[in-house]
């Protein structure tokens, strides 16, 4: 299973909720105020960012390895 | 034209002796109405009482809501799912319904509202006669809009007018108000409920667009009609009270807004001819033309028959369509009359429309009564004598 954090940059309004509640400090805002997965290697795939995003801009993509 | 009444209604069907309110209920069931929501208010309550008993018998639904606002809102909801819906109330309840009336106009939802008028303003005279809601029905909601308002004075006419109300509302996707009054609502007289099939019923025009193909709920055809899709059915769309595009989504684009308001007005104002129902007596030779509607038209008819018997050339136009006001017809019929007397139970509402319509407004007089008592034939006779310079 391959997993990655996908951010829809057009929908993100940079509210910082995902950044603040990420237990592993994976996310941060970039220069434009849009969220990015700065440290994806630390992610434990809890999905807290995905379910708390008010803009539905974050998706944890789960794909079976090819 | 000469009068063509019969003593008791004849033809197929069954003879009943009912209150006007009960006639409204029976006619609605005949017209295929299957959802009623209402709130008790004198003098309309018998409509709800009859339907609470009658509708379940034909598989319909009748609900007593928490107020008139909720009543009309739930009728709108039910109508969108494909049921013919109705509510009934009186002036104070109509005041509360005004916001939902506007919604039904904007969202183009077919439904029928029966307003059994009582004396106003405010709680006024709950159990007495008045025709004070004519202008409330015309203008009672904010913003420019067109509205259809029908009326009747006898129970047999009322039965037919109710069916027409449903037909018009279904044809044009618009609320239609049937405006009667305490007299017609509470009076009992014989009425024939025809067998099924005697009156043609207009069923809802449904879209032929198949599933998964883009459906435009608010894109009028050339004839102004908008095919519907049952809300909750195959096509998912949006319904809103905001100005909206052809998919039903809010828009403040000036062009969309302009087109929509013109469409809402024109679909009714341009079809006055299809929406005008009147009854006329002796309009070809009348020197004194009475114009009336609802219970007042009964007194007008009474005095007209009485005066004709003594040789006076009196005629009568009974307006069954109040809105859109049939101004051209009134102008045409009143052309040769020396006097026009508008008979209504208010301080003068339709009389202003008549004055606007006719060539010689200074010859238009108001015969009215506003004390809660029904205007009598003698009241009208006295006014006619006065304008003829004969004194009472």
């Amino acid at each position: 299973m391959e997993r990655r954090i996908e951010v829809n940059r057009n929908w993100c309004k940079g509210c910082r909720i995902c950044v603040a509640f990420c237990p592993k400090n994976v996310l941060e805002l970039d220069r434009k105020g849009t969220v990015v997965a700065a440290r994806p290697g630390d992610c434990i795939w809890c999905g807290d960012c995905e379910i708390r995003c008010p803009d539905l801009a974050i998706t944890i993509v789960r794909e079976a390895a090819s | 034209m000469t009068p063509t009444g019969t003593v008791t209604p004849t033809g197929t069907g069954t003879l009943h002796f009912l209150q006007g309110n009960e006639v409204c209920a029976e006619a609605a069931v005949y017209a295929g109405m299957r959802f009623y929501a209402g709130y008790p208010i004198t003098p309309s309550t018998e409509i709800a009482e009859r339907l609470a008993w009658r509708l379940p018998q034909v598989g319909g639904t009748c609900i007593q809501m928490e107020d008139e606002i909720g009543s009309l809102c739930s009728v709108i909801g039910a109508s969108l799912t494909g049921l013919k819906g109705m509510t009934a109330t009186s002036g104070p309840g109509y005041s509360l319904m005004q916001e939902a009336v506007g919604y039904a106009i904007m969202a183009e939802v077919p439904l029928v509202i029966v307003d059994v008028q009582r004396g106003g303003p405010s709680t006024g005279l709950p159990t007495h006669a008045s025709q004070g809601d004519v202008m409330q029905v015309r203008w009672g909601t904010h913003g420019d809009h067109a509205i259809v308002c029908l009326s009747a004075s006898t129970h047999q006419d009322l039965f037919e007018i109710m069916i027409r109300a449903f037909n018009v509302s279904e044809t044009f996707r618009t609320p239609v108000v049937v405006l009667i009054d305490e007299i017609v609502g509470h009076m009992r007289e014989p009425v024939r409920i025809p067998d099924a099939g005697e009156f043609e019923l207009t069923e809802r025009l449904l879209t032929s667009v198949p599933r998964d193909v883009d459906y435009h709920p608010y894109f009028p055809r050339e004839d102004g009609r908008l095919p519907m899709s049952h809300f909750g059915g195959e096509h998912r769309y949006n319904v809103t009270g905001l100005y909206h595009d052809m998919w039903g989504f809010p828009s403040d684009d000036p062009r969309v807004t302009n087109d929509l308001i013109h469409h809402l007005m024109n679909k009714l104002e341009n079809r006055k001819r299809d929406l005008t129902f009147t009854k006329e007596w002796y309009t070809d030779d009348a020197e004194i033309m009475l114009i009336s509607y609802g219970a007042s038209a009964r007194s007008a008819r009474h005095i007209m028959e009485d005066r004709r018997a003594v040789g006076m050339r009196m005629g009568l136009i009974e307006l069954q369509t109040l809105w859109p006001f049939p101004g051209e017809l009134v102008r045409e019929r009143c052309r040769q009359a020396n006097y026009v007397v508008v008979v209504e139970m208010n301080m003068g509402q339709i009389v202003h429309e008549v004055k606007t319509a006719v060539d010689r407004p200074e010859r238009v007089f108001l015969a009215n009564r506003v004390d809660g008592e029904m205007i009598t034939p003698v009241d009208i006779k006295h006014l006619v004598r006065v304008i003829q310079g004969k004194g009472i």
Partner: protein
Amino acid sequence: MIQRFLFSGTGGQGVITAALVFAEAAVFGEGLNAVQTQVYGPEARGGSARSDVIIADREIWFPKVLQPNVLICLSQLAYDRFSPLVRPGGVTITDPFYVTRWQHATSRALEIPLHETIVALNGGDGLSIQGINMCLLGALSRLIPVVSPESLHNAVERRFPARHRERNLQALEAGTTLVRERVTTF
């Protein structure tokens, strides 16, 4: 033919029902036209009761009764208020138990002991006046030749559910018999 009836009394006597059954009998039994109206509202709850009936062999436009041909008063209040309205040549019908007559106008006056009759029929309890309205109709059918006893009989059967039917028919019958024996004309 056109006859205007004004039924009046107090709440609980059933005068509105009487008016309704009378009009229905005219429509369904006699093939006549009829219009019935009544006074609604707070004043119709327990206080005075009034119902107008017009019966005709032609169209009826104005539905109210301003001058009755036949006035029925089952209370003093109603009599005091309405008796001046009776058309010249008309009839005023009262029950001496309820009404002391004072009008000596052009109308004919009839007194019928409805109360006494119905109390006797109901077993002698002075408070039990159920059926007085049907008793009135029975009497009326004999006095005013508009609606026949048979039409009234059918109208009662039509109007009342089975459990009330028999009692109302008995009261109706008592009214018809009463007229043959005990009407006082003034």
